[in-house]
């Protein structure tokens, strides 16, 4: 385990509709502006401190479905133990669908483990379309 991975937090990610992201997607397609607006997770200042992650630094969110690296941002309105991120190609990378557990995919309330990381933000080109591995 690297020094980055020695700190981690279990948290619930709440996704929301972001008009700025939608506008970017419509106007410019899935590109650099989309990535800048979508690859973000808002965390409580306490959680950022516990993780040892600075404002704007990368944090990895992962669960049994997948893993992504996002830019961590501080927001005192966010409750510790939760994170807020816009619904996007990034959030669906962590979304599960198991009809034995629920009728609908788990788009809105996603359980993850957050870990500080030295890796770069996941490029959106890795997440969109194409034949997936």
């Amino acid at each position, binding site marked *: 385990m690297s020094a980055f991975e020695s700190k981690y937090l279990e948290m619930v990610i709440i996704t929301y*509709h972001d008009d700025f992201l939608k506008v970017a997607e419509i106007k410019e397609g899935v590109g650099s502006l989309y990535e800048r607006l979508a690859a973000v997770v808002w965390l409580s200042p306490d959680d950022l401190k516990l993780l040892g992650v600075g404002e704007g630094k990368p944090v990895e969110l992962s669960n049994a479905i997948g893993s992504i690296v996002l830019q961590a941002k501080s927001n005192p309105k966010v409750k510790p133990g939760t994170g807020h991120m816009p619904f996007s190609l990034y959030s669906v990378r962590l979304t599960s669908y198991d*009809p034995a557990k629920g009728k609908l995919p788990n788009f809105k*309330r996603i359980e993850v483990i957050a870990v500080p990381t030295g890796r770069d933000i996941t490029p959106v080109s890795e997440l969109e379309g194409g034949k997936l591995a």
Partner: protein
Amino acid sequence: MADLVCTGCGSLCDDIQVQVEENRIVVIDNACAKGAALLYALGNPKRRATCLVNREEVSSEKAIEEAKRLLSESKRPLIFGLDNSTLETQAKAISLAQKLGAVIDDASSFSYGELILSLLKGSLPGCSLSQVKDRAGLLMYWGSNPLHSHPRHLAEFSYYSYTEYDIAGWVPKATLSCIEVRDTELSYICNPVFKLSPGKDREFIQDVLSLIKGGNGTEEAKTFCELFKASRFSLIFCGRGLVYSLNGDFGLFNELVGKLSQWTRSCVIPMVDDFNMLGFNKLLRQKTGYINQVSFAGGVSHGPEFSFLEQLRKGLLDCVLIVGSAPFSTLPLSLRRNLSNTRVICLSSLITPTTKAADVVIATAAPGLEHGGKVVKMDGEEVNLVKVEESAYPSEEDILERLLGENR
């Protein structure tokens, strides 16, 4: 200036004005950022979809021919999307599904479906948005932040649309409230705000029902009941937050609205994002008795096993025709993998992750700008889209008619 109905979201704002010069929009009035972005993108050749077969650019004719071939060879086809298409296109798609013995489904089957069905059956009371203005005393947004999902909703149809609104000195005529799991732009202007823990909407409804039935309720449940008692006409605008918190099961919510209706006229309007989801659900129900998840293989069958998600999860499909939708942007990863292993035909006016992944892309004219047609708004009212510009692309309806003709 020409009038235009905006298809940027489910609000279908009908006061948009555009100035067209040489078949190109040069001025847009009244549209929100999302609506303006859509018109801008449709006028930008770099954002327009092109006809592709196996990612090679081809003529429209060749793309349609390839789509015909894939559909005629398919043993287990499915038609998906249509929530951003006109009623005329939807009717053609249903006919095509019938002819092919295909499954047909839309995004309501994993979002607003059950809520819309309750409204269509009349087991939940609905009303038109035109009735809301100046009449409703309580406007409750539940799991919805319209300032992002439907940017002009408050201004055009609810809180700020009331006649007495005056920038110089306005006294609110209605109470604006919301039920949310986080602070939003909406919650800052609401009073009161019911802030729930994520996924606790069901518990909140149970608390309120318990209080109404004579039991003890939380302070929040009491405040909620007082709001409805104080209003003669109340609206609940239901968003995705509520849909996913209840996991699509609206039984308890329907019971709550029934109980609230003892005190006040309480109506429900779904905050659908796609501009004609209600139209698809209504039309399919007229033709089959079901709003979604229908199979035409050997007659008409319906059930969750015919949902797009289940068909994908079980790997049952060999060809998917996607019309005006972008499931590669929204589906969970496991389902996207299965979709990428299926033959995909996509009808789209803009480039999306789905057009990038599809085997066949047929570029289309944009409804509401380059061709007209009928659509159904979130409140169930029928709206006419008008054509403002000529298009080099065929409409979705024309393409489906050609696919239908060849597959009869």
